[in-house]
Every structure is written in C-alpha cells, then in structure tokens.
C-alpha cells in the first residue's frame, strides 16, 4: 500500500462539492464555524451566495438546512461528525428524516483519527446514531475517489444522507473507472478462509492484512462496505456462506455500526462465526492518528492476528 497516493477524504469531499456546485445551482452548503477544516470553504469561496456560515450552532444549522430543502434546495450541512450527529440528533431525526428531505450531512474529522483533540471530538457512535433513523442513508467512503462519488450520489438520493469523512491520509484504492453505487458493497479481493468486511479507511488496512496473509497461505477476501445503510445483504450473506468466518472492521464502536449491521443479517440467516473489530465500548483519548489506531487495535497486524485467531 506504500506506493499509493494518500488523500484525506475531507479534501476529496471539498473538491467534489465544488464540482457539484458548478453542475447544480440548487446545491447550497452550510457550516458551523469549521469550514476551513471540513473543506466546505472550497465551495464557499466559489459560491459565496450559496454558502452559509451559521456560526457555532449545529442545531440551527440542521433546521435551517431543512427549511432550505423544503423550499427546493439541496443543502450540504457540514461540521465535525460528532457535533453534526450528536449535538443536532433531534433536529436530524424530526426535520430531515420524519418526512424525508434531501439534506446531506457531511460529518468531518470522524472517528479515532480525529486525533489529538481527544474524546470530546472523536465520534465512535455517529454511524450508530444515523443508522437507526428511518429515511437515512449512511455512507462511509474508503478513499478519495469513492468520496467524490458519494457526494454526487447523495445529492441525487431522496431523503437524508450521512457521509462520514476524515482527516486521516488514506491510500487511493480506486481509479476513475470505479463506479460507486449506494447499497452495493465492493469485493476488492476474493478468498475462501476468512472475509474481511471493512468500511472507511479500514478497507486499506484490511487489504494490507490480506496481502500479508496470502503469503502465509491464508486466503482472505476483502469487501469494502461503504454503504452501511442500506446494507448490501446479498454480498454480505454470499461472502459469509463461502468462508469459515467473517470479521468486520471499522473505526467506530462495535455497538451500532458496521459490525452490528452485519451481525443482524448473519444472525437472521444463522451464519457465522463473526468477529467485530472496532472501538470496544470505550471513549478515545488524545494522540496521533497512527498511535491511536495502534492503541485501539485497528492496524493491519491486528487484523491479521484476528484472522489467525479465528481460524485456530
């Protein structure tokens, strides 16, 4: 993976939103005083009349977005993932989802790799919060290319969409021939011993682990599950049926995220076994992104260890 270009998904998002804004004059963007970090500033500089810095008020940000959407605009609401989904949860639930409005929540600096700001800013429950809402689509792009396509897909998707974005330098896995589709998981590597179902930048780490395991004669499939909701149950179940065990990997709590979503469908079909890798019901702390990933067991060597452990 070392030869691949590194891109932060928030940067890819900012560039994509600009292009979307050029193509569709109904697209508007709102931010809560974090636009230079969320990269909605790229859109704001190009289209100041369609950009609204709401100040530090996430609840106001979401409800204002709802009013704009009800009036025919396509708002992109920006802030850190934690505040967008946590601080404004009630507004998202009632004003975006109850009667669905086309608003995209771009949750930036998500997860552990938010880094030094610590537990107050590290969202491990954002996917969980958004996944429980009817009429909400939940997307966690694996790289910059997929991020851009998520932005365009979100604008065309009825109802609310949550896109989880980060500041972690993430290897580009896809080229321009890649075709992202909401609700479709992508098998990046086939295998018959264990299936790694990963989301976000953990997909790249799962690929790294699989490559190493191949050398040891262990056949590992890697699936990029970038749509958490609606989950591609066909691909998940098909993969589970062809391997000895499934491992989900996410930079999110094992409660309520990808691991839970997969567990739900596997349990209903009596498939498994399943191991959920992620944050294990705890808060984060300050540190560099890579230190934190190592501390919480979310690196390629840890993934490889889990594979070996479950194969006995």
């Amino acid at each position, binding site marked *: 993976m070392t030869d691949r270009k590194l891109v932060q998904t928030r940067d890819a998002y900012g560039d994509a939103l600009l292009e979307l804004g050029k193509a569709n004059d109904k697209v*508007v963007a709102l931010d809560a005083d974090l636009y230079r970090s969320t990269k909605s500033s790229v859109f704001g500089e190009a289209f100041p*009349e*369609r950009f*609204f810095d*709401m*100040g530090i*008020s996430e*609840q*106001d940000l*979401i*409800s*204002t*977005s*709802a*009013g*704009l*959407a*009800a*009036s*025919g*605009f396509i*708002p992109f609401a920006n802030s850190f993932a934690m505040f967008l989904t946590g601080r404004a949860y*009630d*507004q998202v639930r*009632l*004003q975006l989802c*109850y*009667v669905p409005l086309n608003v995209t929540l771009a949750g930036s600096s998500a997860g552990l790799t938010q880094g030094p700001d610590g537990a107050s800013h590290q969202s491990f429950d954002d996917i969980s919060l958004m996944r429980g809402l009817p009429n909400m689509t939940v997307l966690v792009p694996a790289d910059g290319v997929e991020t851009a396509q998520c932005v365009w897909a979100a604008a065309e998707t009825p109802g609310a969409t949550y896109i989880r974005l980060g500041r972690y330098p993430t290897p580009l896995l896809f080229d321009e021939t890649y075709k992202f589709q909401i609700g479709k998981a992508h098998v990046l590597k086939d295998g018959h011993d264990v299936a790694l179902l990963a989301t976000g930048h953990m997909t790249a780490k799962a690929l790294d682990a699989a490559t190493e395991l191949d050398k040891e004669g262990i056949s590992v499939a890697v699936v990029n599950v970038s749509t958490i909701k609606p989950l591609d149950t066909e691909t998940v179940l098909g993969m589970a049926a062809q391997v000895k065990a499934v491992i989900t990997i996410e930079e999110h709590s094992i409660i309520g995220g990808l691991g839970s979503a997969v567990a739900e469908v596997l349990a209903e079909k009596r498939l498994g076994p399943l191991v959920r890798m992620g944050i294990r019901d705890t808060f984060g702390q300050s540190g560099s992104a890579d230190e934190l990933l190592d501390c919480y067991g979310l690196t390629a060597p840890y993934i490889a260890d889990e594979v070996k452990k479950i194969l006995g």
Partner: protein
Amino acid sequence: MVDGSKVKELQDITKRMRLEIVRMMGKNKPHHFGGSLSEVEIVTALYFYKLRYHASDPAWPDRDRFVMSKGHSVPAQYVALAMLGVFPYEYLGQLKTLGACLQGHPCMKTPGIEACTGSLGQGLSYSNGIALSARLTNRDFRVYTLLGDGELQEGQVWEAAMTSAARKLDHLCAIIDRNHLESQGNTEDSKPLEPLKLKWEAFGWHVLEVDGHDIKQLCDALDTAETVKGKPTVIIADTVKGKGVSFIEGDFTFHNAPLSQDQYDQAIQELETALEGVN
C-alpha cells in the same frame, strides 16, 4: 389596514374556531387545550387576514409560509385549514387516531403543514431556511412563525434569532404566544423569560407588543412588521392560556389534559353562548 367590518368578521371566526377546537378534542382524552385556545386570534389573523395563500393550492410556490413551531398547539391550525377548505372537515374528527391525517404534532404529510415540529425550538431555524430560499430565488413571499413562550427556553431559538438578525431577514416575522404558562407551571418560575422585549431587541429584532386576543392589534402589528426593513420583526402577543373557556383559562394543568363529561359540556355551552348572534 384592517377595517371595522373585517375585525368583526375575524372575531366571529375566532368564536367558531374555539368551538371547533374543543369539539374536535372532545371529552375524556388528553389534548393540548391551553395553548390551542390561547393562540386562536393569532392563527385567525394570519390565515384569514394576512397570509397570501390559496386554499386550493397549499403548495403554491409564492404562498406566504406559516410555520407552527409550538407544534403541540397545532389543533387551532388544523381547524383553520379545515375552515379554509385545505382538507375536509371530517378530518377534524379523526385527530390523533390511528391512520389519521391529523397527527398529534405537525407532520408535513398533512396538507397545509409547512414543517415537522413538536420537539420545541426548531421552527424558527427552519423558517430562516425558508426565508433564505426566498432570497436565493428572488421570491417575495413572507414567512411567519408561531412560537410558544415556554419554547423560548430552548437554546436553539436564540441561535435562530441570531441567524435571522445576522441575515437581515426582514421578510420573516415571529409571533410569540405569551400565555405565561408551560406544561408544569409559570415560565417565570423555571427559567424566567423577562425582560422578554429587551432580549429580542438585544438580539437585533424589531419588537412589537400587542394584546394577543385583540384581533385589530394583531392585524395592525402584522401590517407594521411588513414595513420594517433590514431586520426581522417579532410580535409578542400577550395571551391567556386556555382563553375562551372559563375554567381552563390560566390553569396550566390543562396544558395537555382530558375534559370530563361535565367539563366538556360546560366548555361547549360557554363557547356556543359566545357564538350566539354570529351568522
């Protein structure tokens, strides 16, 4: 400017509206009597005097918007929409029953309802969004938002108030149903709102104060609000919670409570008496 005959017509509408509200709520079931009755003149002044609105086309893009931010008090709005013919009168009898069009709190699936509310404090922000859309599309409609006074204890209201002023949304008018009571008692006992006028002025709003049961004052204030440029206007309408039914007036326990058979009969009798002589 509203003239004397129009005032009389509007007063008659308020009498019918109060009777319809209590009838639709009926007896032995908890309903939001207090806040629905206190806002009747406000709702009447909007729908039957001020709003640019076609009942036959409630989605008309140039209509003035009315957002019921104090969602629990939507019954008065339901009655107004039925009186206008936006939906059939029969809907009123199905209020809050399984499968009904008229939900316990406002839902945009209901014709004429502009926003999903019910969790308090969100309507003004939403109205700002609508007002911004008017500016972006060069439409000249106006946006009206009715807030409860207890609702002003929600922090988001003040976030929104800052946004309205920052964006100079002079085509937006907020109205506060200042009935002094919230569900468990007096607003001043839990989180005092006074001095309310000064608060809104400090937040950059033009403030008008009226007797919220004086239809002429309300209409005049709505007219004045339209002339204020460069800032949003808020009308603080001083009201009595439960107005029009003697034993409900000023009693916070009727915020959301059932009427007994006797109470219901008395309420209907009082409201029918008030309606005598009205065509």
